[in-house]
């Protein structure tokens, strides 16, 4: 065992990168669920975002256009979910699952020409003085912009839900769509916007995997991250900062356990391998003892004639 070979600064810096795709997808899904819609298609929207972002970044040479394209791609796929659940009033669970399957297939099709290609590198934030600070530099100032955007999104969603009128209306729609409708709010329109936002966030998260974390395109490369993001929203009791905590815990322990393995720590590998899931769930379950509950209208179909 040789713990000294683990560099804590590099560890924290890489856990932030590992956590960002989950974080982006989860914060989008949180807004969707707060509006009373359960979209199980996160995985499908992520992988679609991953290939859209990758393809556009490769074709244009600009990672930023790639991320923009990923957000649009994810949102475009979620439009299908909108059509099914908000217009055709189909079952949300079934539609979401279908969206995942469709997204996986569509991305494989779109990605056929992009296997084995290297994307343009995403530039890191390069602040002359701050980036050179010994410990804080690599942790706080050494990342790419999307990572900061993820954290900013958490703060923005939290503030918007808590303090803004728009956030209040969104929550009202999610708690009781009938009451919100009676008050004159456009329930369907608000939900459509929330779903599109969720799709865009999931798309960004997917592109973060294909452009920054791995960086390459491989079929099925999200490998279940979307499902983890979904679970995280529930375990985080629909609270933005807990989503951040959960994503960092999960990303952190995933990276940490690999570090411990490589350093030869005498903990059986099986325990290390399951530890990210176990510890994240445990911490968030303990935190959620404060009677937080799901939005009351979550997953229910709304029709104005009711």
């Amino acid at each position, binding site marked *: 065992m040789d713990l000294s*070979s*683990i*560099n804590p600064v*590099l*560890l924290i810096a*890489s856990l932030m990168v*590992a956590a960002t*795709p989950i974080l982006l997808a989860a914060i989008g899904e949180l807004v969707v669920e707060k509006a009373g819609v359960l979209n199980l298609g996160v995985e499908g929207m992520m992988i679609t975002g991953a290939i859209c972002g990758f393809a556009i970044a490769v074709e244009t040479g600009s990672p930023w256009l790639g991320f923009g394209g990923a957000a649009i791609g994810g949102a475009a796929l979620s439009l299908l979910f909108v059509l099914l659940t908000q217009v055709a009033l189909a079952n949300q669970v079934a539609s979401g699952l279908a969206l995942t399957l469709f997204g996986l297939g569509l991305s*494989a099709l779109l*990605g*056929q020409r992009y*296997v*084995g*290609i*290297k994307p343009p590198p995403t530039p890191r934030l390069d602040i002359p003085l701050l980036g050179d600070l010994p410990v804080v530099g690599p942790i706080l100032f050494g990342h790419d912009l999307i990572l900061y955007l993820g954290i900013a999104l958490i703060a923005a969603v939290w503030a918007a839900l808590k303090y803004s009128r728009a956030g209040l209306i969104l929550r009202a729609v999610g708690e009781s769509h009938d009451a919100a409708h009676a008050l004159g709010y456009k329930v369907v329109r608000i939900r459509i916007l929330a779903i599109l936002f969720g799709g865009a966030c999931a798309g960004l998260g997917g592109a973060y*995997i294909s452009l920054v*974390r*791995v*960086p*390459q395109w*491989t*079929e*099925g*490369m*999200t*490998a*279940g*991250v979307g499902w983890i993001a979904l679970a995280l929203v529930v375990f985080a009791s629909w609270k933005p900062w807990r989503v951040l905590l959960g994503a960092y815990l999960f990303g952190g322990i*995933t*990276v940490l356990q*690999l*570090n411990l*393995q*490589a*350093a*030869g720590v*005498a903990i*059986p*590998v*099986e325990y290390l*391998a399951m530890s990210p899931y176990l510890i994240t769930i445990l911490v968030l379950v303990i935190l959620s003892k404060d009677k937080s509950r799901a939005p009351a209208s979550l997953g229910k179909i709304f029709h104005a004639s009711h």
Partner: protein
Amino acid sequence: MKLTALFASAAMVLGLATGAVAQDKTKIGFVYVGPVGDGGWTYEHDQARQAVVAEFGDKVETVFVESVPEGPDSERVMTQMALNGADLIFTTSFGYMDSTINVAKKFPNVKFEHATGYKTAPNVSVYSARFYEGRAVQGHIAGRMTKSNIVGYIGSYPIPEVIRGINSAYIHAKKVNPDVQFKIVWAYTWFDPAKEADAAKVLIEQGADVILQHTDSTAPQAAAKAAGNVITFGQASDMSEYAPSPRVSSIIDNWAPYYIARTQAVMDGTWESVNTWDGIGAGMVGIGEISDAVPAEIKAEALALKDSIAAGDYHPFTGPIRKQDGSAWLAEGEVADDGTLAGMNFYVEGIEGDIPN
């Protein structure tokens, strides 16, 4: 009611019609553990499937299902293939072993071919490649090329095939570099690019400048490329898109001749349950071109090692070799028997850490 009945009978007629046409064709099913575009393991199996189609043309019909999880799901997929009239089914991952045996019992007339397993039945053959021969060549290059003397190894699952590879690579790295140390990380997945990339990054952060992988995607190659000054080896497929550096060589699985031969055997009615385990000599394991990033001298040594293995002059597990706990395994000049190799569940002397159960 009448309409549905009409449709149903129309569908039945169609079904019968296609059934009649299909009778002349040999129908072959393939069960894949990853997507065909993984660039590694499953990609090569699918290349071999396409080779079968190219060889027999209209005489065969192939179907495949990709990304099938190991476990009950795979049993369902195989059953479906057998019910749809498959004559021969290739199940291409170690974890399909018990499912293959279970389904084979239910369909005695369907032939099954299970990759990398060890359980056979009258209608189940097993086939695998002696990847450890290729690992010996990789280990040699790794031992000669490393400057930090730390070699990172990304394991998938702690099964004999993977452990054999680790041992073989270690023995040959140690031979040319007594100071070499292996850091082994178990990813517990065959295919998860993000996790594989993380594992590669962790190993690089901890000082490894050579990464060997036994997982299926090219993600570790991308991570090594981003880090710079790290060399890697293509796994299962050539992964030449990462040549000349970081990818300096590769192990290429070549299943096509075997798949064609077995398909022919089913057509001729000469199919029998066999246990095939071929290596470099028979062409089932290929060594991808050693790139210019490797000095000519080391390249020549590696090729000489490859040739002596191919010719049968040298076996990668030749004594004296001790087990990790120091107990004797192979005496001077003794060569490991296939039985021990097939069930290998121990590290050789010098490797640190325990094998997960």
